[in-house]
């Protein structure tokens, strides 16, 4: 019997290696798997590269992970949020590397990784500093640049419901990066507000089919707070 539900955070985080590329879902604090991030901190993996849209707010969630000093590099589209205190301290002190990517390029690079596409051409960032030095090619009279797939070793994602096969649903704008990150990593770990019996999820509403998911942890915490 397939059962991807794990009972403890220690089981959920087992085997995350030092040096891992960790994809972390969420857009700001919505859809950000804070319980899994806390679990990763507890587990202790270090020298990490984190891929996430933002850099954390205050001293919780992603910001708390950065605060441990275990993140070598962060790849994101928008390192300016309401209160990115931890990131800014580390960045000013030269203790974290930052790579800024266009948000759509970041999403597509992960989608490509999950879909078996090693690289693709995009019009985004042509003629800009973020596109400088990248291979260019013209198609139908327009210039595009080459972007490579961005696979993760681990993805930490947040879902609304999950079942033992790892099928997941999402809730409104908390979907964001979670489904593409689930596709792109070798080990995908999901936290879900609700664990449901196999067969109760409406197949039409499954946002991530279980094939992309390795472990599901039940983390009921209610509503997120935008900070």
């Amino acid at each position, binding site marked *: 019997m397939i059962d991807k539900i794990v009972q403890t955070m220690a089981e959920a985080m087992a085997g995350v290696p030092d040096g891992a590329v960790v994809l972390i879902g969420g*857009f*700001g*604090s*919505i859809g950000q798997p804070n319980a899994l991030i806390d679990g990763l901190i507890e587990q202790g993996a270090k020298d990490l590269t984190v891929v996430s849209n933002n850099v954390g707010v205050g001293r919780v969630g992603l910001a708390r992970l950065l605060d441990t000093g275990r993140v070598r590099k962060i790849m994101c*589209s*928008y*390192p*300016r*949020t*309401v209160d990115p205190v931890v990131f*800014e301290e580390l*960045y*000013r002190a030269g203790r974290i590397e*930052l790579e*800024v*990517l*266009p*948000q*759509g*390029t970041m*999403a*597509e690079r*992960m*989608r490509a990784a999950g879909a078996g596409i090693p690289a693709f051409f*995009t*019009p*985004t*960032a*042509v*003629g*800009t*500093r*973020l596109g400088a030095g990248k291979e260019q090619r013209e198609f139908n009279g327009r210039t595009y640049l080459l972007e490579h797939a961005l696979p993760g070793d681990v993805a930490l994602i947040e879902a609304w419901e999950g079942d033992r096969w790892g099928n997941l649903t*999402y*809730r*409104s*704008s*908390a*979907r*964001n*990066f*979670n*489904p*593409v990150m689930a596709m792109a990593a070798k080990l995908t770990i999901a936290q879900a507000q609700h664990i449901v019996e196999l067969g109760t999820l409406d197949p039409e509403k499954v*946002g991530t089919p279980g094939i992309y998911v390795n472990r599901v942890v039940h983390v009921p915490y209610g*509503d*997120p*707070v*935008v900070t």
Partner: protein
Amino acid sequence: MNDKTMSGQKIAEAAPSYKPWTRREMAARAAADIPEGFYVNLGIGIPVMVADYIPADREVIVHSENGILGMGPAPAPDKIDRWLINASKNYVTLVTGGSYMHHADSFALIRGGHLDLCVLGAFQVAENGDLANWATSDNDTTPAVGGAMDLAAGARQVWVLMEHTTKSGDSRLVRRCTYPLTAPGVVKRVYTNLAVLDVTQEGFVVRDTVPGMTLDALRTVTDAPLRQ
């Protein structure tokens, strides 16, 4: 004509008297020009206010790059859905007929040329349509691009809503951008607090100005040639 009007006219001759549009008036001015049936993305800052001024009898569908197609206005304080935020990370609503998608799909519709229009804020717009709206210098410590480059490169049309000058009085309309580019040659129209301008093959063409503004007065605060 009484003395009062006479003296008022004298002042007007000495220095053109005009009142800049407020940010809300700029948003309303742009909203009036969006046709029915358009799919639009509204950037962070003044552009998001455009949604508040689209006439109620006109169906315009607003996209938010964090995965919302059919975004509605801010909710009443007692009707907040804590899972539903826009790209500025403020609570919003979903209109009847709206839908959600994940980030790769959200940017596929951007990059794929499916949006009729994107309205963005900017630091500078050049007369050739170059857009600079994400970093203020090459050594900007933490430049934050977000979805700006994807939107600028992908939407069928890009309009900009921005103040005409910086706080220190420098023109944001320029011959060539000095700030790092977001995308080259993409801006088609600019709404400032002083004027509405089209970006054409021949450069900026003034389409409208605040009442009392003259072309000469506009030229004194604009660092690029203006045509009428």
